[in-house]
């Protein structure tokens, strides 16, 4: 999504505007007294934006540290991601210290909003955010976001909303709390003095006080009305007669005066106004295209000079717009002249935007012109780009605006629509669309089914491959693995030798199928091929992203060193060639887990901090959860299991099933932590809910859960663990998953040892050590705690002397840097951490950020602390905790 700078432009005060100190002072008082919101709510033409411009100029002339962010909203900003991106862009323009990344269409808005609040809290500047023309915003999710923002408004941010109708915000509550300054129509009307000053001084009209009073009375102080009246009165000799006639008429002020103004406008100017009224923003070249003339730039400048409701949208007079009221009148008259004329103008505008490469506006005007074939053609042409950027901005809305029969004539659009059904989870809708597209491509044209309308080109040529790929994806989503293989192979066979993207996708799908079937070595191979094809296609981002999937298969295969090397290589490329952009942060998150396993906890954490520093844009949507899983791993290794659980909860929120095999479900990770915390009832509830038993048939996808079950059975001292472990080991070894086998052997050693069967315990442990040493496993043993430490010491006594075992034993003691137990049963470790931060200067959002948890989670902790300490405020909690010696 390109960010239009014109939307962030702060309109300077107009030369011909009258100063309104009484309103500026009121607005200013609201800001100074720390109110959250200023609401300027009045119909069009009451001078809302003009007043705000004057106020902002005043703030800026005082040379305070206050920085102003301005956002002019439009009807098509009714998309939460787009809206928030503009808010972020506006704030960043005001203070570049604000480092939040723009959202992608898949981003979670609530998460992004919380991040933005934290970030504004962090910076030192005082900010004013103006949302102009807020009446355009009707989308409920944006209104919810605004309510959230108001509730969590950082103290250094003041919000200003200017709207023609009251926004759906809790205004009554804000009024009751005195948190809002309101300027409404009654406040904005020109007083008789202001009207007089405006007409005689600003507009330089020679009017008697009786004429001024008559005009003020007739327009009821409506600013736009007075402005139109002033325009009609310019260079008029019969002023008093005109005023008398106007005052005596019942006609709507705008009708009466616009007629006057337009009648006195030269014909060529009037034509220009009507022809360009269809545009939301105006530039010289665009107006030239729509009017088929070549003097538009000069025309726009002269309109601005004549004060004909033209508003500049930038500093260099490149873009303008008409005043909303004025353009409504023009459009209404244009419409009365006939819709064909209007459609022709929209078509010209669409052509100009298409030539300038702005497909969004090109499509919008084509749709306005009801020229659906044209709109469909432009949409079709944007699809390769959309696929490449993996952002389907607006395309779905566009498709929804097209008549079904237009889409049904274009196989390229039908297939795109099938894809969107697939990713939105509407599985049943996919195959019928693919079948229809196939029919359009293959059936000989007949009366019932004439030849299709899609433009020839690479997209159309590759469509059979695309259809096979989507069928394979569909089969993957429904778990039909043989079909995945069949369709992926078909796609590979159909792909042109140079269709690297198609080949890469087909190999990737085959790899995913192998992965889901537990054939990890074949999966690694297929993804290697996929990565090579993606590189040839010039798509380094996707090629490097395959590293994560390959790593997910190499780790269970026990190839830790290879995994680490693959990550290191990919990270170097991401840093050198992609400037640390996507997927660098994903790769940092991935390597962190391998490093943790190898006992390098500090480096592992450094990678996570590096990922965070790169910012949200360096994370992909589908791998975002990995950061939290890896951080949980680090925390758990430090003995902070509550913190680890919090992080896993955050990971769960961000986890999207996607097409990846769910080989390590996050809920099973949580169950493992519960087991280490001896919260066996919760772990048992999880196992029962998953219907796991020690007699289940085993498969690769349930392996992690079954090993978790074995751990639970061991902790419960329940029967069945050893038998289950034996079967798991057999399955893992049969498919050469030695990483998994290592863990099973470790558990077997512990299980036998507990039964007093030292010989078997030693045998299992020796086998595990044998495999684990060359790959440098550490946490595999250390995470098992004291019983494993004992076994390893016994192994040394029994003659298994090696540097490796000694290093492992050392790691047991190093792992003890965890926050020591509190000594009190009252609050948990995690709550103690929260308490310590509550005692600091940090704000809530800052604490949440410090702990890598959401504000909601923090609130839950705070509530528990309050309950346990029997207090109901932060100050009381801190005092009480000090008294108890907790902090």
């Amino acid at each position: 999504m390109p960010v239009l700078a014109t939307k962030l432009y702060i309109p300077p005060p107009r030369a011909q505007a009258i100063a309104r100190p009484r309103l500026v002072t009121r607005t200013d008082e609201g800001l100074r007294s720390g109110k959250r919101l200023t609401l300027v709510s009045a119909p069009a033409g009451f001078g809302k934006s003009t007043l705000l411009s004057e106020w902002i100029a005043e703030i800026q002339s005082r040379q305070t540290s206050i920085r102003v962010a301005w956002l002019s909203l439009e009807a098509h900003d009714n998309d939460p991601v787009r809206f928030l991106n503009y808010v972020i862009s506006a704030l960043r323009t005001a203070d570049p210290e604000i480092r939040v990344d723009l959202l992608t269409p898949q981003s979670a808005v609530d998460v992004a909003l919380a991040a933005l609040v934290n970030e504004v809290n962090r910076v030192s500047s005082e900010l004013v955010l103006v949302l102009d023309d807020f009446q355009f915003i009707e989308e409920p999710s944006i209104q919810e976001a605004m309510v959230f923002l108001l509730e969590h408004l950082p103290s250094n941010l003041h919000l200003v909303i200017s709207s023609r109708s009251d926004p759906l915000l809790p205004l009554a509550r804000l009024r009751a709390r005195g948190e809002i300054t309101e300027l409404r129509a009654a406040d904005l009307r020109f007083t008789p003095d202001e009207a007089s000053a405006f007409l005689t001084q600003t507009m330089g009209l020679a009017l008697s006080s009786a004429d001024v009073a008559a005009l003020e009375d007739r327009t009821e102080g409506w600013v736009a009305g007075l402005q139109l009246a002033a325009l009609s009165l310019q260079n008029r000799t019969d002023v008093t007669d005109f005023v008398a006639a106007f005052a005596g008429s019942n006609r709507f002020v705008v009708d009466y005066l616009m007629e006057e103004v337009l009648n006195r406008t030269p014909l060529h100017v009037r034509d220009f106004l009507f022809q360009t009224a269809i545009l939301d923003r105006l530039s010289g070249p665009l107006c030239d295209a729509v009017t088929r003339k070549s003097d538009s730039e000069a025309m726009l400048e002269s309109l601005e000079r004549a004060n004909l409701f033209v508003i500049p949208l930038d500093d260099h007079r490149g873009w303008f717009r008409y005043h909303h009221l004025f353009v409504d009148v023009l459009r209404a008259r244009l419409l009365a002249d006939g819709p064909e004329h209007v459609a022709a103008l929209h078509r010209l505008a669409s052509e100009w935007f298409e030539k300038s490469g702005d497909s969004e506006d090109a499509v919008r005007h084509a749709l306005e012109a009801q020229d659906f074939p044209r709109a469909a053609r432009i949409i079709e042409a944007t699809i390769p780009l959309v696929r490449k950027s993996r952002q389907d901005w607006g395309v779905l809305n566009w498709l929804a605006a097209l008549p079904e029969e237009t889409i049904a004539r274009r196989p390229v659009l039908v297939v795109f629509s099938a894809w969107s059904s697939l990713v939105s989870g509407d599985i049943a809708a996919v195959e019928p669309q693919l079948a229809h597209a196939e029919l359009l491509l293959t059936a000989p044209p007949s009366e019932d089914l004439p030849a299709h309308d899609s433009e020839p080109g690479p997209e159309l040529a590759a469509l059979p491959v695309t259809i096979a790929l989507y069928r394979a994806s569909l089969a993957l989503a429904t778990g039909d693995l043989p079909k995945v293989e069949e369709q992926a192979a078909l796609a590979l066979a159909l792909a042109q030798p140079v269709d690297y993207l198609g080949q890469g996708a087909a190999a990737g799908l085959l790899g995913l199928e192998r992965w889901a079937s537990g054939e990890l070595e074949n999966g690694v191979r297929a993804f290697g091929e996929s990565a090579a094809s993606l590189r040839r296609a010039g798509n380094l981002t996707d090629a490097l992203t395959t590293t994560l999937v390959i790593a997910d298969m190499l780790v269970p295969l026990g190839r830790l060193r290879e995994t680490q090397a693959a990550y290191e290589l990919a990270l170097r490329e991401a840093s050198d060639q992609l400037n640390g952009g996507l997927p660098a942060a994903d790769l940092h998150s991935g390597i962190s887990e391998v490093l943790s396993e190898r006992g390098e906890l500090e480096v592992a954490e450094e990678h996570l901090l590096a990922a965070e520093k790169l910012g949200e844009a360096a994370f992909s949507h589908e791998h975002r959860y990995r950061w939290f899983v890896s951080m949980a791993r680090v925390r758990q290794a430090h003995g902070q299991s509550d913190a680890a659980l919090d992080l896993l909860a955050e990971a769960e929120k961000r986890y999207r099933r996607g097409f990846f095999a769910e080989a390590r479900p996050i809920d099973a990770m949580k169950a493992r932590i519960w087991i280490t915390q001896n919260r066996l009832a919760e772990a048992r509830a999880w196992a029962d809910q998953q219907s796991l038993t020690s007699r289940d048939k085993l498969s690769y996808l349930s392996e992690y859960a079954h090993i978790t079950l074995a751990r639970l059975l061991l902790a419960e001292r329940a029967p069945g663990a050893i038998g289950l472990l034996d079967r798991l080991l057999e399955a893992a070894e049969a498919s050469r998953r030695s990483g998994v086998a290592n863990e099973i052997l470790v558990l077997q050693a512990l299980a036998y040892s507990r039964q007093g069967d030292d010989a078997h315990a030693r045998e299992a442990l020796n086998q595990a050590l044998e495999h684990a040493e060359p790959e440098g496993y550490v946490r595999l043993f250390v995470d098992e705690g004291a019983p494993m430490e004992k076994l390893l010491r016994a192994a040394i006594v029994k003659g298994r002397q090696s540097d490796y075992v000694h290093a492992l034993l050392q790691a047991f003691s190093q792992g003890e840097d965890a926050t020591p137990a509190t000594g009190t049963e009252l609050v948990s470790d995690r709550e103690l951490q929260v308490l310590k931060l509550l005692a600091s200067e940090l704000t809530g959002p800052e604490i949440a950020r410090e702990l890598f948890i959401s504000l909601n989670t923090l609130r839950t902790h705070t509530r528990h602390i309050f309950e346990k300490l029997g207090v109901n405020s932060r100050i009381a909690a801190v005092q009480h905790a000090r008294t108890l010696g907790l902090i």
Partner: protein
Amino acid sequence: MHEIRIRGHLDERWSEWFDGFTLVQGSDGNTTLTGPVIDQAALHGLLRRIGDLGLTLISVNLLDEKEQSCQ
């Protein structure tokens, strides 16, 4: 059928702009817009257009069938 009354005399050429509603200028200085709306969303859209022009809305009435046949 809906009947919307606004203050002042509005030119008839606004008819297309207001979804083809008929505009009748009353002797009381007000204008009555009459026409069909397909649903509530359309009605709200119409009212918003009236608001956008800075017009003063006096009343909105739903005319029932009987009343229409009498007219």
